[in-house]
């Protein structure tokens, strides 16, 4: 057997072997490639990823939801919650708070929201009226809120301090038996809606497909594997063309 023929047979054997190995990658590349091409049409660029394990893989932790009921009925929609840095009135984001939510009380026409180092006042519709930081007079270390008539009570390391939202005055007072606002578990519908909103601002399915297509989903190793798969496809194409061209008798003219 001539060396040329041996080389051709060897090429054919490796063409098949590489083809089998590359088949899996071809499926992944074809499926993700078509989906990426049509991500606008199919809404994949706006559809959020909700799978906790995938979000965890991307380093997005599940946020802590902290909610306070705005009235006695715990099943009503009147809840004020914090998820990540966002403050939500029911299911609508009304502001932000970079520190933990510590208490919420409802005054006539005003909702007082205490985060660590910050007291914010909102209208019942969720528009922000005031934002009082410790630099603007909020007593240091305020850690809980309660309502006493039309005054807001703040629990601080130095004792109870009353805040008059009309005069913006803080004054120490001695009271006992105060019922401080306590967090509670918001209804599942609100929890789901807020988590969906939070995740919606994070990752889309299009991002996942792009990372799967490029191999980045599996880190730098995945990128190299996809590079090898691309080279394998190139070798299959070249070897296939060579085998086809070098088929014995291909270029013989019919006599």
């Amino acid at each position: 057997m001539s060396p040329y023929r041996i080389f051709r047979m060897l090429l054919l054997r490796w063409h098949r072997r590489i083809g089998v190995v590359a088949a899996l990658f071809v499926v992944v590349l074809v499926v993700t490639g078509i989906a990426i091409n049509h991500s606008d049409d199919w809404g994949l660029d706006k559809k959020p990823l909700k799978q906790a394990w995938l979000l965890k893989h991307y380093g997005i932790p599940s946020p802590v939801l902290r909610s306070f009921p705005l009235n006695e009925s715990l099943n009503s929609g009147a809840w004020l919650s914090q998820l990540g840095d966002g403050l939500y009135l029911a299911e609508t984001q009304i502001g932000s708070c970079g520190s933990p939510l510590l208490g919420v009380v409802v005054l006539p026409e005003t909702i007082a929201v205490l985060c660590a180092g910050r007291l914010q006042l909102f209208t019942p519709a969720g528009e922000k009226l005031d934002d009082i930081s410790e630099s603007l007079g909020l007593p240091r270390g305020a850690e809980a809120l309660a309502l006493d008539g039309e005054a807001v009570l703040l629990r601080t390391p130095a004792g109870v301090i009353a805040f008059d939202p009309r005069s913006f005055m803080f004054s120490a007072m001695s009271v006992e038996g105060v019922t401080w606002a306590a967090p509670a578990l918001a209804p599942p519908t609100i929890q789901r809606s807020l988590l969906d909103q939070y995740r919606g601002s994070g990752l889309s399915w299009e991002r996942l497909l792009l990372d799967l297509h490029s191999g980045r989903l599996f880190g730098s190793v995945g990128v190299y594997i996809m590079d090898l798969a691309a080279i394998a496809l190139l070798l299959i194409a070249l070897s296939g063309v060579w085998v086809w061209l070098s088929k014995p008798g291909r270029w013989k003219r019919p006599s």
Partner: protein
Amino acid sequence: MAISHYKMPTRRSGLMPAAVIFGVLLVLQCMTTPLVQAASAGQYLTVDEFLDLGFGDDAKPESKVFWLTPALKARIKAIRGKDFPLLRVRYWQQDLRTAWILEEIGKEMPITIGVVVDSGGAISSVTQVEILAFRESRGWEVRHSFFTEQFRGAALAERDVLSQHIDGITGATLSVRAVKQVALIALLLADAVQASADTSAAE
């Protein structure tokens, strides 16, 4: 014989003194940096201290609230480049002098800035700017009087800009911008308060 007593001159490297000086400077840098940072970011003035500076120790300025109109919010938005987050602003007033304490983001954290405006003249002008609190690691130089003194006498010019040039500070561009924005907003608000008072008086 002379040769046996001859000592080869040792070749002194110029690198050694340089290395010693560099080491000393490095140690000094490490020792002083935390002190500089501790002295830079933080709370410089309380609200009461600022009001004492703005109105005098014996003054008792009245605490008031000004509700923003949509037109005013639009002008403030044009200055800030984004919406003003509050529906109303608290201020202090004594006669024709008002004090405003506003927070504006420098780079990432809010800077608490106090501005005193005197509306006694033909036009309102700034009499005092103070930084009450600074929370970032860079740009705290805006607290110094060499910078804040530049605002004295500044008024609102056409197109809502300051009537006088304010020199910037290298490395504190965003903080300088925040202080200038707050000074402009305080002037706008003081004018609005004055206009509101004039309207009430006319009625």
